[in-house]
């Protein structure tokens, strides 16, 4: 009895047995439902069954949206027969060996078998995945802001004077012109754009500064000059969806609910699990091989 429970534990935990079990399942499924039975190449009997003919008809209808005429059906059957003859003759000649396309296809099928054990993650699995890589699925923040482009050089005196005026609410053309050296054709007012949209026009430095200001709670006031590749800017954030008080937790919850980020996280989790499954399978199978690598380097 003791040995039996040991055996059960072994089967449950050993990755190789999962792999083999999965492979057997797939093999069984494919054999049962396949209409092209696996043949021994020396078998000289070729049968075209009712299900075979039905399959040919259905494939034709799928492509042409109308059933084949009897001449067309006869043609399909003839092609099926000649293909089967070619296939068996090719097997007899061993043409499947030394073929890189066949080899790669078979490798792909083995990897596919290892993938079969991976299902979609549960909500709690997905939640943990998002928690472990928090920055990747963070929602894009939205900003509404104004910016004044100053130019490529900075005159501290006129800058300070202008800032004082701006921050007491004197936002006139004159004040702008007192700091302008030359206008730039990027928008002065931006209404509720995502950070990725803002980054495209203003660059990464600008976006980083917006986020830093929002986190400091400096929205609503004109900032001291910010330097980007264009030169110097003054910024004032009017509104941001990035509330510095919102917790990391609630941003993760939002990522779970938003369909786009949820799908992205799901796909990442699945490909990560598939990679793990491949590695486990290879580790288990390696034990059966005597591997020799010549000295290189």
């Amino acid at each position, binding site marked *: 009895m003791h040995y039996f429970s040991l055996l059960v534990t072994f089967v449950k935990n050993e990755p190789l047995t999962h792999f083999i079990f999965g492979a057997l399942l797939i093999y069984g499924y494919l054999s049962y439902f396949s209409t092209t039975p696996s043949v021994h190449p020396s078998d000289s009997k070729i049968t075209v069954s009712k299900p075979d003919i039905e399959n040919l008809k259905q494939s034709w209808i799928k492509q042409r949206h109308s059933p084949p005429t009897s001449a067309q059906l006869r043609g399909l059957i003839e092609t099926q027969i000649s293909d089967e003859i070619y296939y068996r003759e090719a097997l007899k000649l061993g043409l499947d060996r030394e073929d890189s396309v066949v080899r790669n296809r078979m490798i792909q099928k083995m990897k596919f078998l290892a993938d079969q054990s991976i299902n979609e993650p549960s909500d709690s699995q997905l939640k943990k995945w998002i928690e472990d890589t928090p920055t990747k699925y963070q929602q894009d923040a939205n900003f509404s802001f104004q910016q004044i482009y100053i130019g*490529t050089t900075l005159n501290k005196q006129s800058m300070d004077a202008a800032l004082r005026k701006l921050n007491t609410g004197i936002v006139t053309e004159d004040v702008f012109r007192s700091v302008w050296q*030359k206008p*730039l*054709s*990027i928008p002065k007012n931006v209404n509720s754009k995502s950070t990725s949209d803002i980054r495209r*026009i*203003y*660059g*990464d*430095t*600008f976006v980083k500064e917006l986020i830093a200001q929002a986190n400091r709670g400096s929205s609503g006031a004109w900032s001291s000059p910010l330097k*980007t*590749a*264009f*030169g110097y800017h003054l910024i004032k954030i009017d509104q941001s969806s990035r509330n510095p008080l919102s917790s990391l937790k609630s941003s993760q919850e939002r990522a779970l609910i938003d369909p786009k980020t949820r799908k992205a996280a799901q796909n990442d989790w699945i490909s990560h699990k598939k990679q793990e499954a491949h590695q486990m399978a290879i580790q288990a199978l390696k034990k059966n091989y005597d591997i020799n690598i010549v000295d290189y380097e």
Partner: protein
Amino acid sequence: MGGELYPKGDAAPQFLVRATMDPEGATLDRIQIIKGWINEDGSTSEKIFNVVWAHPQSREVQENGILPPVGNSVNLTTGQWDNAIGAPELETLWEDPNFNPRQSAFYYARILEIPTPTWPLYDAIKHNFELPKDVVKVSQERAYTSPIWYRPNTQ
């Protein structure tokens, strides 16, 4: 970008052109307009006009028609460059000084950035090897517009 122009008496066409730098990239050196036309004998000709450039106070078109280079701020060991030279944006209104209303012609704009590293230089820095002397290590990236065609026969 692109389009067709038809005669307006003998008036020469005027082109308004503006280019803004990539905020993650390099500043601009100059904008050129290239004109091509068909001569009386059927042969073709082209001419490059420098229409607006960075640092106009210190750069002037020489007698031979050449505009002095904008400089080179590329560091060959780090692959970085300094946007202190060049301009973030250039714009101008330009009129064709050699206009012949009876000649078929095209015009397109070409914008040059200040010098930046080429891919061989980035690779050499990353993998730490020396490039042969004749490899181009620094170049000026370009942008092109679609051509505007001048059709002398009125539609």
